[in-house]
């Protein structure tokens, strides 16, 4: 019970961080049809900016400043880079962001070096929130969950309940009609791209000190968030939410489990043939296969339900 509850909480907080990351990606994809390959790089940039700002003015300024700066940079990149390649089609846009991820990681190394930087959790939050059967749950994890929940709520309200949200949604399906009604669609696109990047930056501020702020941090989450977005269904925010939690829980539970096929058969009292028990696959524990589980999930979901869990259209 103790193990289940603690792992559940850890899985939830990791899943919510994944959602913070994939929300921006989903937003950009559903708006522009571009899978932004540099999204994880903006996450990394957010963490480094937060480190730089918080060492001067404190954590709470960084919490707002770093996402804002990341968002402005993202908007500028959309305006002066992406927009120029749009006429060559989606492949060119995807490749542009792919090249951008190379440049951003190099830029971060030029500015802050190749080693990890000491980006710390603020002192106020650096304490246990509560303790459960003797195991303490850190306050910062609770803060992470709170920020993710607030963000989910505000995106939902923004998209569904405001005029801006209406225009954004309409510009996705009927760009020409929206343009005829007098809205500046390219500017909406720029703002959405900037907004998505700002969300990635926010995830960086939150995740950078929960994990480690280093140049490899983009590569560490880069493919996982694609798995989240694709499994959830391309362009579906609710799908991304469910997939984030699913993958967060899946990975957190898997690393703590020590079962293997051999152990399972033993527990059932079945005598397995010698040839089988000598196979490596047979002895692998769930914890050992944990790193590949999200990708396995991706392949299975793609085979069974190509649209993803809540996707509305074929990719």
């Amino acid at each position: 019970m103790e193990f289940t509850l603690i792992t559940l909480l850890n899985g939830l907080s990791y899943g919510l961080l994944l959602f913070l990351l994939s929300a921006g990606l989903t937003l950009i994809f559903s708006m522009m049809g571009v899978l932004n390959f540099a999204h994880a790089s903006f996450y990394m940039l957010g963490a480094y900016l937060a480190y730089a700002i918080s060492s001067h003015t404190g954590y709470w300024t960084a919490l707002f400043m770093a996402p804002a700066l990341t968002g402005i940079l993202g908007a500028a990149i959309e305006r002066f880079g992406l927009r120029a390649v749009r006429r060559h089609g989606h492949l060119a846009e995807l490749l542009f962001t792919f090249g951008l991820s190379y440049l951003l990681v190099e830029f971060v190394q030029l500015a802050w070096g190749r080693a990890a930087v000491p980006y710390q959790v603020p002192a106020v939050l650096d304490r246990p929130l509560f303790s459960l059967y003797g195991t303490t749950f850190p306050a910062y994890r609770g803060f992470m969950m709170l920020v993710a929940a607030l963000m989910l709520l505000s995106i939902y309200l923004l998209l569904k309940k405001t005029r801006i949200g209406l225009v954004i949604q309409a510009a996705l399906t009927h760009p020409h009609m929206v343009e005829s009604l007098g809205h500046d669609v390219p500017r909406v696109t720029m703002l959405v791209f900037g907004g998505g990047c700002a969300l990635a930056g926010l995830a960086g501020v939150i995740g950078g000190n929960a994990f480690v702020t280093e140049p490899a941090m983009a590569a560490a989450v880069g493919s996982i968030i694609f798995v989240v977005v694709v499994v959830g269904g391309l362009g579906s925010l609710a799908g991304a939410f469910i997939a984030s939690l699913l993958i967060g829980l899946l990975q957190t539970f898997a690393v703590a489990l020590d079962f293997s096929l051999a152990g399972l058969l033993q527990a059932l009292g079945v005598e397995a043939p010698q040839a089988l028990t000598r196979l490596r696959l047979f002895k692998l524990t769930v914890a050992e296969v944990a790193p590949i589980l999200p990708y396995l999930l991706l392949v299975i979901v793609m085979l069974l339900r190509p649209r993803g869990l809540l996707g509305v259209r074929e990719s």
Partner: protein
Amino acid sequence: MTRISSRSAGNVLVWGGYAFALLVAPLLFSQGAGLSILSQMGTAMVFALSYNMLLGQGGMLSFGHAVYSGLGAYTAIHALNLAADGSLPLPVALVPLAGGVGGVAFGLVFAYISTRKSGTGFAMITLGMVELVFASALMFPGFFGGEGGISGNRVIGAPFFGISFGPQIEVYYLIAAWLFCCSAAMYGFTRTPLGRILNAVRDNPQRAEFIGYDPRHVRFLTLVLSAFFAGVSGGLAALNFEIVGAENIGVARSAGVLLFCFIGGIGHFFGPLLGAVAGVFLTVVLSTYTGAWQFYLGAVFILMVMCAPGGLAGIASRLLELLQAVCREGFAASAGLLGLWAALAAAALAILAGTVMLIEMLYRRSLAAADGSTVNLFGVLLDAARPAWWIFGTILLAAGAVAFMRLLPGFRRHCDALGLGSGGGA
């Protein structure tokens, strides 16, 4: 008749020139690391050509092509080790074939899964599969050799006609021979009915389906064939380095071949060859001179996506057209165009010089500060500690950029007037 014979004469010229270039290349670059780099380029060329069967001819964006070349490399090194034990009668020259067979074996499984989708879905599945295989490498140390990888020794058995494959030059010619045969086979593939239908599937899957071809089946066959050639390139790499590690099957290698192909030009059959040369140059040669090579690779790639989607091959064919136009119009009539072209080239050179200066000085200040503040750039000593150099670099970059932007519209107009499409390479 004359038309056909002149075309086949052109073919003989192109392929003969290609073979000749492969033969004489080691004579020109025989010093130091030259041979090793040429061997790596040859391997990368086979890999890039096989990748372009998917991307250029089939419109399939794959992020996992290294899976086939990497698993092919593992198959090849195991085959080599078995041959060394005497338990597999396989001459060293045919080890790449074992790599190809390995590529096909894994290709059959992975293609069955991934080709169910096209477009973004296909790209995402390939991304998932490359991560899957890469993570498995540490789980199954028996086949993958764990962290250290699997090593082998290519000098086995008695020398055949004096060839033992010990010296690098013999390995180079083996790679060159395989490269030539694979290039010919892959070029032949573009001329087969399957290759043509693949183009149709890329351009309009609905219509291809309507005339009776199953797009999924076409993609499946192509991916398996492409996996064969990728496996051959993996086998060549295994022979060249005599060691195969997990980095051979990783995302980075898969991403690299995409960069190479795009820089070379995916619309032309020979584009990936140029891309492999440029890519190996950027990653292997440049990385020995500057730590910022990854920046240059990314920057060249972005520049290509933005300004020259046709890649190096596109630029080359534009230059050829320009040359033809100059010959047609006469030298005097096209002096204006040539002048514009020279001015554009000068502006581009200024942008390049300014960027390289700034990047190298920035790099020296942040990551290599321990080596002192001076940078030797083509014989010019730059001092990263002195603001004058920074100002100079910035001015060079800015002036070049402004001039380039100013000149480009005029150049485009000129090209349009001559019926050259929109601009030389831009």
